[in-house]
């Protein structure tokens, strides 16, 4: 039998039909739903008189337009409130289980899926959100979709998809102190560009990826879309099985043993071919930071902002020049030492317990700079409870940071948490697009450790000076 990649194996396991010139009809094992990209899909079902085919494979929560203020507070924004209430009503009408605001299991959809053990190796997972690739960390094929496809999945539990190219991202070697999973993915995107993975699905492999924890793998997979890829995954291994074991929705007893035996068949076969490949040496990586208005505009923390005059392609030169105007940054100068107004630690990229531990290890016994506003937003209410049990919330509060409730918060700035026009943030989120953190806001993307170091000094900082 032909050698196959893990991507091809999962795909082949889910083919329902391949007819004529139509794309493959692919079965979906888990559908995650949130308030922003679903209301029009549920309305579509109503208009057609359709039900949700598999509510047992569908789960909902509120995260995007959800405030991170204390849970007893009302939602001040009436439009957001109506959207959150609409999700709850839709779930009630269509028999979908929802973890609403106020639930102790509510959280960012890409944090709670793995946390509850819903996401499992070998699954196909979809969500109306481009960061669905996060679930790829568990060895799942996880794809971000639009609202029409949300409706298709609700109605049929299937999607029409064309096979993507396979793209091997091999990261070998050991990371140096102060360098994290976030720096791996920012370095990859800086190298291949934000369109580099278009039409492809990444498989992250190599010794550096193997030594990452499951949460670190989620950080890497999360930003596959920022490299343009449709999805990104890591083949399952013992780290994966240890993470899944015992979680609420994980198989138990004999079913667990059978599942692991099945999952062990998933990793890429010896000799399987990829359409594209890249190799990164982990030992050469530095903490990374973005300077521009897309996630590909990243440099090592001590590097210099590139100069548009060094670029020959006119549209590329123009896009860098525009970015520097928007960011109000000089070309050719390092970013290190640039003042920041806000530090945001959170988002589906970096809001899990290990991210908060990393940030807390830097902030412990230190104070955030008086001119900086620091928001620490746990990815889920379960992460919040765990952090509080470990006393991390106290470390953040003692340092002068704001400790919030779970949600997408300042990553998407449609929930009351945002920057003022012209403000700079160091943010552990995934997008530095113009206006992403509020109209006129300027975002530097970095790791939780870099964010914490920058919170203390009030400027872009190299965390290695504090280690």
């Amino acid at each position, binding site marked *: 039998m032909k050698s196959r990649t893990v991507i091809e194996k999962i795909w082949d396991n889910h083919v*329902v039909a391949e*007819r004529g*010139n*139509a794309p493959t*009809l692919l*079965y979906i094992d*888990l559908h995650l739903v949130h308030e*922003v*990209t679903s*209301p*029009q899909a549920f*309305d*579509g079902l109503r208009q*057609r008189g359709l039900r949700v*085919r598999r*509510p*047992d494979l*569908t789960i909902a929560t509120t995260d*995007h337009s959800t405030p991170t203020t204390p849970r007893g507070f009302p939602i001040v924004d009436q439009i*957001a409130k*109506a*959207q959150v209430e609409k999700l709850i009503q839709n779930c009630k009408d269509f028999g979908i*289980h929802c973890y609403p605001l106020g639930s102790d299991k509510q959280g960012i959809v890409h944090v709670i899926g793995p946390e509850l053990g819903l996401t499992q190796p070998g699954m196909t997972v979809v969500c109306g*959100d*481009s960061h669905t690739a996060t679930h790829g960390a568990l060895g799942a094929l996880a794809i*971000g*979709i*639009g*609202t*029409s*496809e949300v*409706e*298709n999945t609700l*109605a*049929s539990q*299937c999607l*029409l998809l*064309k096979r*993507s190219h396979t793209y091997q991202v091999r990261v070998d070697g050991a990371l140096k102190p102060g360098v994290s999973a976030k720096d791996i993915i920012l370095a990859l995107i800086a190298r291949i560009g*934000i369109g580099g993975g*278009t*039409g492809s699905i990444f498989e992250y492999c190599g010794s550096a990826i193997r030594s990452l924890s499951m949460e670190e793998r989620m950080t890497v997979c999360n930003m596959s*879309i920022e490299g*343009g890829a*449709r999805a990104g995954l890591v083949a399952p291994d013992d780290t994966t099985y240890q993470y899944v074991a015992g979680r609420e*929705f994980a*198989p138990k007893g004999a079913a667990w043993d059978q*599942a692991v035996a099945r999952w062990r068949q998933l990793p890429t076969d010896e000799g399987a071919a990829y359409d594209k490949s890249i190799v990164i040496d982990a030992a050469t990586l530095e903490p990374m930071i973005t300077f521009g208005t*897309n996630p*590909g505009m990243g440099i090592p923390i001590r590097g210099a902002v590139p100069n548009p005059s060094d670029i020959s392609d006119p*549209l590329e030169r123009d*896009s860098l020049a*525009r970015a520097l105007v928007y960011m109000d940054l000089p070309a050719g100068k390092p970013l290190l030492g640039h003042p920041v107004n806000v530090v945001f630690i959170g988002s589906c990229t970096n809001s899990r317990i290990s991210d908060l531990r990393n940030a807390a290890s830097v902030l412990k016994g230190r104070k955030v700079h008086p001119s900086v506003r620091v928001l620490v937003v746990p990815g889920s209410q379960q992460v919040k409870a765990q952090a509080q049990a470990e006393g991390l919330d106290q470390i953040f509060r003692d340092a002068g940071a704001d400790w919030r409730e779970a949600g997408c918060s300042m990553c998407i700035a*449609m929930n009351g948490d945002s920057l003022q*026009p012209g403000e700079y943030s160091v943010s552990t989120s995934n*997008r530095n*697009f*113009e*206006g*992403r953190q509020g109209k006129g806001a300027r975002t530097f993307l970095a790791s939780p450790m870099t964010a914490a170091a920058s919170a203390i000094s009030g400027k872009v900082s190299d965390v290695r000076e504090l280690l």
Partner: protein
Amino acid sequence: MEKFTPFESRMVALPRDNVDTDQIIPARFLKTISKDGLGDQLFNDWRYDAEGKPKPDFVLNKPESKACKVLLAGDNFGCGSSREHAPWALTQYGFRAVISTSFADIFKGNSLKNSLLPIVVPPDVHAELLKDPTGAVKVDLASQTLTLASGRKVHFPVDDFAKHCLLEGIDELGYILQQEPAIAAFEAAHPAGIDTRA
């Protein structure tokens, strides 16, 4: 969906690389529970000043841009968020096609589901179009032909199935639901490993 018919239109040029869906429709407009009212917010942060007044120098605010059905965009158009609000906003403004050298995957799929045709052209054609950025072009999906103002005809690629759906004005879900026997057979052979309601 309406059937996608041939048309001729002048272009609006926004030749910037990597225009992301947060620019096409900023996240704060995603709190809506309907598809309506997004056209006025298309490219909001580039289109309006702090007081919400149209910026006269932004291309969509120029009088000659009114009634244009074709957007001439830069490389990797529509990258970032999966929000389908982006093609909704573009079509509500009046666009029926976007021309670029490449599109982000999710945006391309979302557009095809909303009768917005993403037309990929090679760099030399893109460069020729940019020389006359308000020129008229003809779009014929059936023959997959883009006719430039100069009369040059360019063949563009379109997925066969998407083309069929656009030309017939049908959406994917109808086709998917016809596959019910295959879906049921798959489910029978592959019992689910989870029950989210348990």
